[in-house]
């Protein structure tokens, strides 16, 4: 079994956000990028757990992004992935989740995969859209919000659990498939120093995005985004809570219900 994990490098969630001069994007000047999307770390851990538990052949990592995204792939290699591929985008190239999915599909076509894993969502765009779109582009089934996963290699079936409003569904479906992992069985491992050093020597192939143009152009939507950001805004800074003064719990309750009804109008 070969597993392909798709990882995205995102700005550190604690980074202070500023709007770029264009008014259409995050100003990435001086922004610290995390090694990896947090949800992707949980997903990679799940891939490595399965490799160890079921003796899979390989875990390979794939990312679409600018040159700096190599750091995300190296971090994934340091966690224990075997090889990595970066589809390198030129500075300023605009992507959206479905265009990203088309690029991932084109690159994945040349990488062995029985299971393709993605995270719950990327912490920047919060779309949660790449996984099932990738399934469509690869002509594979897709299963989302998966919380438990056991492959039965002999029958090419996956036994899974997935999140559903109010509960979970225990279900099965065939693979090869694309899965979005809501949470893994274990907390993501922290790479050890020797593994970080080893990761520097693991194979990492770079594919210029242009090389995929022919393959992507024939997919629905083509070699371009199908959505465009026309503005990117930050809310006025929160001024902090309006503190309600009170002497007794009853007074606290009375004052709170009053403002919720009359001022905030949420009751």
């Amino acid at each position, binding site marked *: 079994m070969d597993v392909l994990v798709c990882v995205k490098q995102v*700005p550190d*969630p604690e980074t202070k956000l500023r709007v770029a001069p264009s008014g259409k994007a995050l100003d990435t000047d001086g922004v610290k990028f995390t090694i990896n999307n*947090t949800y992707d770390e949980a997903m990679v851990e799940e891939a490595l757990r399965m490799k160890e538990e079921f003796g899979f052949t390989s875990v390979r990592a794939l990312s679409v992004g600018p040159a700096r995204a190599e750091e995300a792939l190296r971090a994934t290699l340091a966690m224990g992935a075997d090889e990595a591929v970066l589809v390198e985008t030129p500075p300023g190239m605009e992507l959206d*989740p*479905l265009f990203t*999915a*088309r690029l991932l599909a084109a690159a994945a076509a040349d990488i062995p995969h029985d299971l393709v894993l993605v995270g719950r969502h990327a912490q920047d765009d*919060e*779309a*949660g*859209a790449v*996984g*099932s*779109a990738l*399934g*469509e*582009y690869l002509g594979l*089934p*897709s*299963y*989302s*919000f998966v919380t438990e996963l056991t492959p039965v290699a002999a029958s090419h079936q996956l036994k899974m*659990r*997935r999140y*559903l*409003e*109010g*509960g*979970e*569904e*225990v*279900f099965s*479906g*065939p693979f090869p498939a694309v899965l979005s992992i809501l949470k893994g069985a274990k907390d993501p491992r922290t790479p050890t120093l020797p593994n970080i050093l080893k990761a520097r020597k693991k194979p990492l192939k770079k594919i210029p995005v242009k090389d995929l143009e022919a393959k992507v152009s024939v*997919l*629905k*939507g083509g070699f371009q985004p*199908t*959505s465009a950001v*026309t503005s*990117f*805004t*930050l*809310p006025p800074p929160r001024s*902090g*809570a*309006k*503190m*309600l003064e*009170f002497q007794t*719990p*009853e007074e*606290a*309750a009375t004052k*709170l*219900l009053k403002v*919720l009804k009359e001022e*905030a109008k*949420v*009751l």
Partner: protein
Amino acid sequence: MTLSILVVTDQRDGHLKGASLEALSEARRVAAQAGGGEVVAALVGSGLSAVIEEAKTRGVNRVLVVDDEHLRAFSASAYAQAVSRLIPKLTLPWAIFLPDSALGRELAPRLGALLGAGTATAVVEIHADPAGKVTVKRKVFGGKATETLELKGTPVLSLRPNSFAVDAPAAGDPPVEKVELGALPVHAQGVAVEKVVSTRGDTPELTEAAIVVSGGRGLKGPENFVMVEDLAKVLGAAVGSSRAVVDAGWRPASYQVGQTGKIIAPQLYIAAGISGAIQHLVGITNSRCIVAINKDPAAPIFKVADYGLAGDALTILPALTALVTKSKGP
């Protein structure tokens, strides 16, 4: 020529979910805003007769149905195929709306990919101009920023729950048309559901509830957590918790709100005895109004809350429950 908005509903639990009703209502508003157009409900699944009747009361112009045994278990691939069978029934397909439920979130991008259309998930605002151009707003970066998107083709949008008003049911008898599913590609076959495990009783689902009351470690012990549940009950609210509560084993993981739990956007969020760690905050910043009850006036939760009560949750929660109960009368 009539522009059509197709609204794919979610009825995985046998009736139209609140988020589906929001999507149907918003479709009517958007159609009117752009100078007219029809709203077509798309019901996809198996055993839909009751839901068809429900959809007919929602002010739609038509109801299209794909009711097939092969759609008993949800498969995004199969459902996308089913919806695509409905597109030829529209004179001028304009946009496709779905609720941003678990089902809608998975189906919308798959459908967008199948159609090659501009796609946006978890949208909180939709505008259409008379020329038909659709723009949407959505929250990004954990609710810390908003982006406006312009979408190509017949945009596929999933609408974030609790973000759009629900219209009252309307009288009328819109025509219902059944459409054959036909043959499915291999990748749309073979999903089987063994069982559904319910993680909570009759309280509303966290991600859908208009009001959520959450408790944290400040409640001191599982025996006090019922104070959170009592208040939630009288408010008709869902119950959430911080991770500390789950880690301590007071409540199961399904209660957890935040980065590794659920991301919610209720009208009102009440946090009692929760400090406001960044991993908790990313789960709640999209709430319309946040109330914090914390003994420590310097707790970080007060920086993001709209209203703060610096005091003991163990006495304030019961006082709130009593007052809400009283105000509702006998």
